[in-house]
């Protein structure tokens, strides 16, 4: 398999893509030209403005089709691949028992003003996600789910009190980068409250995170869209109990 590919519309290598956007300009020929210019800057050549719709007097919405000449180099793709083995609940339990000789303590929360608990609940509650049971189901994991809109200081206090091995935080609202701000606040607070060796593992998750940003955000791992409980459990074991 070649490692250089292009988008595929209708024939191999045709490079065809679709884009849409709004420009803050009244609709006119010039506006369509502006759309064409933007498409060109994005690398579309030829770029076909196939739809232009005025939205009130000041904005125009565009749909553009065209060919991009960019090559996608599959070899250069960097993804956070799973770098640990995927374990069954049984194996997870066994590993914890073996190496910790006590239950592994996990604290979960939605921090800041975020109240979207469905995602963290999918990871933590017995009910689970995508057919996999959540961490509460694991005999050797103790789960403390603090729920929604938990403040960072409160989270730190509870982590201390529970002697948490790992702190699992969910962030779903991303408008104005709320998730990034909250995550940074959280990792900073843990950094202050714990000595480096004693700091619990920090894990954040949510559908709009970039999994490659963990370093930047000061956490140990980021889980995105479609994460399953088993992946999380396996990661915890890999980092804490092996």
């Amino acid at each position, binding site marked *: 398999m070649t490692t250089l590919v292009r988008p595929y519309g209708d024939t191999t290598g045709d490079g065809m893509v679709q884009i849409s956007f*709004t420009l803050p300009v009244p609709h006119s020929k010039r506006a369509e030209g502006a759309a064409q210019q933007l498409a060109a800057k994005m690398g579309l050549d030829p770029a076909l403005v196939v739809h232009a719709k005025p939205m*009130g007097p000041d904005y125009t919405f565009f749909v553009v089709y065209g060919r991009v000449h960019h090559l996608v180099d599959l070899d250069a793709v960097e993804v956070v691949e799973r770098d640990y083995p995927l374990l069954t609940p049984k194996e997870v339990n066994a590993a914890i028992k073996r190496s910790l000789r006590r239950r592994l303590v996990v604290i979960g929360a939605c921090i*800041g*003003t975020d109240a979207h608990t469905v995602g963290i609940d999918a990871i933590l509650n017995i009910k689970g996600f995508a057919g996999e049971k959540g961490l509460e189901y694991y005999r050797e994991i103790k789960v403390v789910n603090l729920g929604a*809109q938990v403040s960072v200081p409160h989270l730190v206090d509870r982590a201390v009190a529970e002697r948490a091995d790992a702190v699992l935080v969910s962030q779903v*609202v991303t*408008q*104005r980068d*709320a998730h990034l701000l909250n995550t940074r606040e959280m990792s900073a607070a843990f950094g202050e409250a714990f000595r480096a060796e004693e700091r619990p593992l920090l894990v954040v998750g949510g559908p709009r995170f970039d999994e490659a940003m963990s370093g930047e955000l000061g956490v140990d791992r980021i889980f995105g869209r479609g994460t399953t409980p088993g992946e999380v459990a396996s990661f915890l074991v890999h980092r804490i109990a092996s």
Partner: protein
Amino acid sequence: MSGKLDLDPVTVRQARSLARKAGRPIVKLAQQHTTVSVERATLRLAGLGGADAEGTPWVNRLMDAVRADVGLEHGVALPVWDALARGEAEDLVTLAQKASAGSVRFRHPEGRDAQRARSASKRAVGGGIRRIDARRRERDRLIKKHGDAPRTPWIYLIVATGDIHEDIPQAQAAARAGADVIAVIRSTGQSLLDFVPEGATREGFAGTYATQENFRLMRAALDESSKELGRYVRLTNYASGLCMPEIAALAGLERLDMMLNDSMYGILFRDINPVRTFVDQRFSRQVHARAGIIINTGEDNYLTTADAVEAAHTVTTSQLLNEYFAKEAGLEDWQLGLGHAFEVDPAVPESFRLELAHALLARELFPKAPLKWMPPTRHMTGDVFRGYLLDGFFNLVGAMTGQSILLVGMMTEAVVTPWLSDRDLALQNVRYVLDAAGGLGEDFHPAPDGLIASRARQVLAETIDLLDRIVHDSDQAGDPPLLAAIADGTFGLMKRPPDGGRGLDGVARKARDYYNPASELLEEK
């Protein structure tokens, strides 16, 4: 639009009577308690606004001082107007300022002093109520002048930039593009604030703070649009949260037209204490009733955490409870924007027809209520094309079942808060469906024993079962059965015990000599 399902009137009556049975003890509970927010709302009605340098509203400052001196259980009115009568300050703001500086002490007046404080407070609060009445008349006048929405369902669009000055042009654009109702979504976290922020704000997350000034600015902008467009454009905001009573008061004062106000949303989705919620809810709804505001309840939210097929009957149950509480608080049928939603997993066979069954059941159970029909959210994905299609079929159910308020769905639901273009595309979707298939109700007749009618009957039967279980529920503390049921996770799969949740410390059981002029005035009429 009646009788397509041929519901059994006896069963329907039974459902309502069970809801009454479940609700009545809660009303009693609400009557027996007051909250800091009810009291602050009373002060707001009496004209106390503004905030100190740190942004803490004067009503909070004053309330806290009164509470520190004499407690909450007597209400704020008598201590405050007694202090004024005693000449501690010439007006409420000054009193609040002095109180927060610690230079006034409050007492609980007795005898003639109490009498004097009572009538003074009633006069003051009466001023606010009269302003609300005037706003209501003004709405009626403007509707007459500009004309009303051209048809039902009313088209309801949200703006959510977090910045009132971005919201305003977007709202005006949406109105121009056909919206009949604009809702300004609130910043995350506001509902847990135990105060109402002040002034024009630009720093919300995924929504804009509800403040009196923001209300005023947006209402003025939409008044402009109404004039321009020749139809009155309605404005909605959120009462829910720890400040329900106060926000309801501000909404009445600033002529908002609809308010999100659910009897249980705060409990279930914001973990606000149940007693606090029910007390606040009752007061806020009394204010809405007076203001001629249409409430929007939040049953749609249940289906974001529970399955829309399995939990369909919890929606109906909650609608019946919301109806009972609303009417008890003085709201009329035309003010009951009961919520429900198109949230059946599209992968379920016949999902569209199940939606029709649920929507028609709501329509026929509440024939006079302006039902609020909510778009798919949970099963929306990043596939915006599929999302646009689902929204179209949601719109179609709305048209076929005669929904009253159509909350316009966005193809980017799973991605971002709505973009300008999302809103424009969404309106185009609604318009196509209403114009092209708006009359399809004429040809829609569920077969008497077909899937739709059977499903509707099944949901109603499950509702009755559930209500029956609720009225027989109990807990060790002997709380009203509905509180026990909420603690069991009956709604939206959330378990909320009566003594848990936020804001409980702002609740007090009324003393025998509790007095609140606002309640008196609102219940008079």
